[in-house]
């Protein structure tokens, strides 16, 4: 009886907590939009300085065909960049793991690519490469390093006893990699991908902005730059809104993938499991 009571109380508290976790962010966002709207109305701010939320939304609907095609271009670039970063990052980390010589020779290049601001590299790449390729290269450059670094960390943090066990049973190098190191590194790899997803979008945007002056682009960032030149501030905001929604969506998708891949065994995903 007592225990039953406690269970129901626990359950209702959990439900409340879950509700709060959804309601609170929505309320906070709503309050922000409301404050924005009030500010524009009360101060009579003209739309070419700060458009009201309603106007931004209206522009989003009116300009949807243009914005949508631009979104597709940016999104494609971001995903291609992420895919290439994944292949390159994981592949290179595996190579590093197999050979110290390769690691010592190539690691400096990876670090140089990472620490040099992509804004500074983009104009150069735009000179050497056709624009779509240069944009893709930028997305790849910024997304690549987190995957490499995290995968390297994951591959090196395998349980030593498990490595011994595999050796004892005569596992080949390939078996150790495929059946032990990669699964053990999976949580780290997925963590790297989640960071890389957002960065890949940033890289694509930076390159498009840098290319903006050339005027040949069609991605979302190009729309923002173009709207800026034409002082079409509402459209600028609409494109910006779309861009952040895209970033959030990429993060959410990658988080979901992580959860699905790890929920049976990894501590990071176990907590959610227990609540669900």
């Amino acid at each position, binding site marked *: 009886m007592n225990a039953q009571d406690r269970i129901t109380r626990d359950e209702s508290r959990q439900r409340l907590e879950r509700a709060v976790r959804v309601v609170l962010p929505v309320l906070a966002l709503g309050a922000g939009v409301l404050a924005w709207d009030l500010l524009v109305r009360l101060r009579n701010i003209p739309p070419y300085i700060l458009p009201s939320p309603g106007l931004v939304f209206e522009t989003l609907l009116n300009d949807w065909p243009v914005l949508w095609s631009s979104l597709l271009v940016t999104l494609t670039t971001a995903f291609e960049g992420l895919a290439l970063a994944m292949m390159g990052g994981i592949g290179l980390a595996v190579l590093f793991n197999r050979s110290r010589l390769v690691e010592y020779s190539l690691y400096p290049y990876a670090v140089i690519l990472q620490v040099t601001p992509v804004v500074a590299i983009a104009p150069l790449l735009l000179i050497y490469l056709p624009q779509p390729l240069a944009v893709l290269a930028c997305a790849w450059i910024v997304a690549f390093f987190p995957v490499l670094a995290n995968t390297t960390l994951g591959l090196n943090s395998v349980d030593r006893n*498990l490595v011994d066990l595999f050796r*004892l049973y*005569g596992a080949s190098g390939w078996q150790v990699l495929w059946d032990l190191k990669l699964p053990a590194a999976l949580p780290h790899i997925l963590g790297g991908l989640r960071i890389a997803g957002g960065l890949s979008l940033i890289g694509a945007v930076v390159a498009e902005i840098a290319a903006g002056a050339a005027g040949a682009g069609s991605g979302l960032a190009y729309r923002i730059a173009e709207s800026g030149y034409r002082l079409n501030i509402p459209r600028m905001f609409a494109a910006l809104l779309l861009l952040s929604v895209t970033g959030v969506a990429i993060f959410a998708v990658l988080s979901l993938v992580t959860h699905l891949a790890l929920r*049976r*065994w990894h501590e990071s995903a176990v907590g959610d499991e227990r609540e669900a």
Partner: protein
Amino acid sequence: MSSTAAQSASLSSATGAIVSLRDVGKTFASGVGALSGLNLEIHDGEFVTLLGASGCGKSTALRIVAGLIEPTEGDVVRPAGRNGGIGFVFQDPTLMPWASVARNVSLPLKLAGRRDAQADPGVTSALARVGLSEFAGSYPRELSGGMKMRVSIARALATEPKLLLMDEPFAALDEITRFRLNNDMLALWHDVRRTIVFVTHSVFESVYLSSRIIVMTARPGRVFTEIKIDAPYPRGNFRTSAEYAASCRTVSEALERAMTVS
């Protein structure tokens, strides 16, 4: 290279040992001397127990026997061509957290290239032996500490190895499960005449199981003394006999003296 192999083969066939450690010392890179002057011969079909204080180098000795680490001094001699396989139960369960119990247990078979290893009868019977048939589909984090250890034991049994090395496999188990697994262990050893090297802290367990007990000194470990337990197998009523009590006393006293010498 070939001459040492031939030499080791003749040496071991002369003594009948399947592994011999000669004057083995192990100093870790950290400067800790774990073993020094350890002489040990494991004969075919024996049930040998290493008994000693915590930190005296038992796990290290077992790893050297398995060939997982190399000694810094002395020689390890193994007869050439001996290949019945080794099973190793680590002091920690050492399971793959991303794999189900059945996949963990079937790992040695899979690494040996067996197709469809999870469905292998060896896996099913090993799981049944440790009483975990119902948990074949569970993941390690869903198991208790003792259950994980039993999975680890099942994995070592799956290949039916000739030489089984076990590092305190039953330390985390309750008395009853422990007794049952002790008996299972003995039955298994008796049936197939495999060789078992066992590490334990428990004097009672060592006397009940072993044909020979090796008492080790404190770190750096070496052999303090060897005690043969001559009671015949199977040892159904051995635990309640006067002989058992006497052996336990002898071993306890030896262990106590071993801990005070340096």
